[in-house]
């Protein structure tokens, strides 16, 4: 298990649901939107925090996007709201494209645990609210691409070696045969910055939740092994070049006083690879991922506590990186 942690960053399952007899978002009024928020919040019980997006700053909204707790689409909704558990492993977007989009994110490859959590939450809400459902199309969603299970299962993976070898195009093509799509760190259309890729199921109708999860779980495991083997093979074949490149990246990471987010991402990917090859130690994959999210633009803006220019932002980012990586040592 520990083995694939160098490749598998996190697991995510999302369910889309709509409340029966309430029109979908584009035809909704304020009263209906209010009811969705109140009813769902009442249904799930204690231990959750409710955040109405209209009450928080633009920077705070952007940070929620960077943390993958909400989608950029929620920012477009007039009545968008978010419910979070204390650990922030469960987040429920309200009045996004669908009335309810609940998700569970867990570190590593953890589909059965994530599904158990989200299924429990779903049942809890369903016991209080009637969902829009059709015996042919399953759970009904605003967009026909999400009907059926309404489920999107995804896994975030760090794939530097396969990318380096130019094999991602083939990998993506192969995965599409199993109904899986591949996106970058921040979803649709986003670049695979830092060699981070998100695998997710495309089809939601006519396949059961279990089948969807099995397919993506097996593919992720297979891909993780492929990545680890490829990384080892590259290192074994080009020892000096690999060490030179990764240690140079470490040198920059440790000493830079100005880092833009693109450079940070690519260096961080090298450090990650160096740790997985046993060249560096003293930092965990979770810490590296946390750094990646904390060093995104909005998070830095928040840390600065006011208006800053790009130079100042890149300076703060470099400082953060130096601090976060100070315990890294040569193995």
């Amino acid at each position, binding site marked *: 298990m520990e083995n694939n942690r160098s490749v598998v960053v996190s697991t995510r399952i999302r369910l889309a649901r709509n409340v029966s007899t309430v029109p979908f978002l584009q035809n909704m009024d304020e009263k209906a939107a209010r009811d969705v928020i109140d009813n769902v919040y009442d249904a799930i019980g204690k231990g959750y925090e409710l955040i109405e997006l209209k009450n928080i700053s633009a920077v705070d909204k952007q940070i929620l996007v960077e943390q993958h707790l909400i989608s950029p689409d929620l920012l477009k909704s007039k009545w968008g709201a978010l419910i979070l558990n204390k650990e922030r492993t469960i987040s429920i977007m309200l009045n996004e494209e669908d009335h309810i989009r609940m998700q569970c994110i867990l570190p590593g490859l953890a589909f059965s645990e994530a599904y158990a959590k989200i299924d429990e939450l779903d049942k809890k809400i369903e016991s209080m609210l009637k969902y829009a459902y059709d015996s042919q199309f399953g759970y009904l969603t605003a967009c026909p691409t999400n009907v059926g299970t309404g489920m999107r299962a995804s896994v975030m993976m760090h794939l530097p070696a396969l990318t380096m070898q130019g094999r991602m195009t083939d990998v993506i093509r192969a995965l599409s045969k199993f109904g899986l799509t591949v996106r970058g760190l921040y979803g649709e259309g986003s670049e695979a910055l830092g060699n981070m890729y998100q695998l997710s199921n495309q089809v939601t*109708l006519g396949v059961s939740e279990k089948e969807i999860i099995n397919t993506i779980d097996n593919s992720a495991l297979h891909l993780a092994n492929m990545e680890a083997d490829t990384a080892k093979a590259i290192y074994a074949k080009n020892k000096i070049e690999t060490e030179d490149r990764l240690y140079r990246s470490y040198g920059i990471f440790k000493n830079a006083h100005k880092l833009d987010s693109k450079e940070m991402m690519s260096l961080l990917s090298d450090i990650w690879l160096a740790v997985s090859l046993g060249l560096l130690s003293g930092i965990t994959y979770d810490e590296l991922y946390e750094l990646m999210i904390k060093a995104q633009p909005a998070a830095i803006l928040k840390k600065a506590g006011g208006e800053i220019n790009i130079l100042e932002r890149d300076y703060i980012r470099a400082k953060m990186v130096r601090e976060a990586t100070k315990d890294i040592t040569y193995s």
Partner: protein
Amino acid sequence: MKCDICKKNDATIHQTIIVNGNKEEMHFCEECAQKGVVGFNKAFSMEDFFGAFLGKEVKTIEPTCKSCGMTIEQLKKTGRLGCEDCYNELRQYILPVIQNVHGRTTHVGKTPYGDFSETIEAFDKKGPTEVMDEAKTLSVELKQAIEKEDYESAAIIRDRIKVIKELEQAKGE
């Protein structure tokens, strides 16, 4: 009822058009519809099509969701439906889109009445013992009940299968 276009296949899709001020019902089969006559994939406007087909000037009445007023034209623009009833009201137009996206048209998995897929799956895989024969019959009945949307019977059958499963497990231990 036969398709107005090919006059061969059974018509499953119905469209109201206005010819010289009079309403007329048109009927066609899936195949002709898929060829680009109606719904999302049409190559030219419905008016043009019916005009050429009938040799007269025609107007179509756009299919609309009775609950929220959503039309097919709007749906094509936004890709989003207006309310849950749209799926029922506009089913024949949404069906090809769903078939196209998902490659299938019927939901399996979790339902508001429970998740039956696992039960069916489990029994389809078991070997032909006496107990399993009974379970097999039950799993067929379960499938039929679900198809008929008789969820009450489905729940009862599912519970019976569960008992058999437990008995079998107890025997094996």
